[in-house]
């Protein structure tokens, strides 16, 4: 395999976009290319994610984006893996570049749902679960993760303040991220007084419905003569799946796909959790960050819940988690989320995250989950 780098990355501001998903995707792709020093004609393949493009009456968006970039002859395909779509796209780009099939590839994720009301958006999200066996029985996405939270609380002592601290930390980080949907800090009082959405999860445990787009440029080391930004060396690109329906899983105390993908990734990278400087993890709900930290191997099972409360996962803590604000506060434009995690790591490595810098940026890990863990990506990056 060839050594493969992330050489460019860009995101727009998450929240409510005026642009269509297609327009936003094309803009961030061009911005990512400019940050890489490569030109559109250098791209050999474009991997696009746009899970809910149908909500904009648009499918097959890859050729439209490539056409907008002036490279209509470049092949593209749409990668759908629910909330882990664009990290799945990154994996495909890695495979193509590391395997020598192309020298450079574009990974783009874009989503626009703000033109839908909450009911319609909730219903769109819910179809990424098992529709006949979960959604038809009353599950929503907050409901499914709330069910995990109930099981966790029934097994391990977890005070509401522990989940609240995750939300407070991630809002504080997002307040310093110009790309974030929510750019305001919250207090424990605000958290505790927010309404229950699906018990025990409150409003401030939940990520928002966000519009947004993010793009990443992947290239072979040997193809990049003089990078204009500090590249991320892709030390591991691992994917895993697990049983979609919670009822058939061995337990409800974590996501099996995260455990499997993490084991693969650390093996590929020849690294261990203690070697990682900071993380971007999939915190669609606060309980998801807790489960991720345990499933990835950074905390023993049942011990990650107090980490945010004790400051361990703060930007200046022992293990900074989600300096971008995470899905929880940066926002969660489904298909853009995986790519946007890499944007944050790229900006941290390049010293372009003013006000939210983490102390050490030699290694980082990105963790992105599809739905409730039917699929999962783990990528590990390091400096050259």
């Amino acid at each position, binding site marked *: 395999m060839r050594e493969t780098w992330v050489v460019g990355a860009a995101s727009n501001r998450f929240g409510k976009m005026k642009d269509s998903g297609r327009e936003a995707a094309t803009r961030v792709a061009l911005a990512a290319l400019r940050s890489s020093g490569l030109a559109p004609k250098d791209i050999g393949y474009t991997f696009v994610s746009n899970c809910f493009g149908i909500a904009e009456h648009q499918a097959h968006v890859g050729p439209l984006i490539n056409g907008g970039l002036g490279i209509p002859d470049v092949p593209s395909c749409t990668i759908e893996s629910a909330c882990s779509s664009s990290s799945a796209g990154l994996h495909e780009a890695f495979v193509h570049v590391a395997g020598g099939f192309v020298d450079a590839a574009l990974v783009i994720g874009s989503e626009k749902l703000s033109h839908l009301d*909450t*009911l*319609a958006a*909730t*219903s769109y999200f*819910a179809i990424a679960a*098992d529709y*006949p*066996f*979960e*959604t*038809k*029985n*009353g*599950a*929503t996405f*907050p*409901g499914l993760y*709330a*069910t*995990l*939270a*109930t*099981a966790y609380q*029934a097994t391990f002592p977890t005070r509401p303040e522990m989940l609240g601290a995750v939300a407070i930390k991630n809002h504080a980080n997002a307040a310093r991220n110009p790309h974030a949907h929510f750019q305001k800090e919250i207090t424990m009082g605000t958290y505790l007084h927010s*309404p*229950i*959405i*699906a*018990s*025990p*999860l409150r409003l401030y445990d939940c990520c928002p419905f966000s519009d947004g787009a993010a793009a990443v440029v992947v290239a072979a080391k040997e193809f990049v003569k003089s990078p204009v930004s500090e590249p991320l060396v892709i030390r591991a690109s691992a994917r895993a799946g697990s*049983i979609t*329906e*919670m*009822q*058939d899983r*061995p337990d*409800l105390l974590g996501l099996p796909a995260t455990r499997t993908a993490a084991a693969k990734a650390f093996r590929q990278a020849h690294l261990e959790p203690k070697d990682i400087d900071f993380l971007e993890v999939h915190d669609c709900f606060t309980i998801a960050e807790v489960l991720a930290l345990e499933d990835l191997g950074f905390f023993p099972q049942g011990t990650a819940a107090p980490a945010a409360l004790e400051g361990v996962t703060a930007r200046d803590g022992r293990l900074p988690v989600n300096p971008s604000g995470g899905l929880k506060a940066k926002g969660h434009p489904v298909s853009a989320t995986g790519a946007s995690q890499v944007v944050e790591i790229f900006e941290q490595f390049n010293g372009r995250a003013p006000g939210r810098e983490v102390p050490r940026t030699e290694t980082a890990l990105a963790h992105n989950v599809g739905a409730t863990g039917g699929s999962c990506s783990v990528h590990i990056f390091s400096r050259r």
Partner: protein
Amino acid sequence: MDAEELPRAPHTVDDFLRAYEDGGPLRGFRCVRCGLVSATWGLACPRCGDTGRVEQELSPSGKVVSFTIQTVPGDEFLNDAPYAYVVVELDGGGRITGWMPAVRSVSDLEVGDRVRFHPSYKPGVQFVRDLPVDRPGSGG
């Protein structure tokens, strides 16, 4: 090999849904290799991958393994909120998910509570509290 020659699941997804509407019995499969009882559709065991599976009638009763009170529902449960979404371990094996109308607060349900399948006016698996009939005044 023609797809028609592959092992066939005795049930389609629609068969599961019709069983819920018809009031049961709840159907599932037991893996002949690992013993997992599953109440979801598939051609192989979701745990071990073996295609050797036998149909099994599932108990209508069991205990709540986990749950949430859904305050903000999706469109198909718009008129039912708040309600409980539950994961239930059925007596005799197999887990299934379902919903419980009129369970509106976390104080109304606990992990470990007994519930039983109850035919619903709408698609899906509806559970109600499984109250002992010989204990009048046991609440619920």
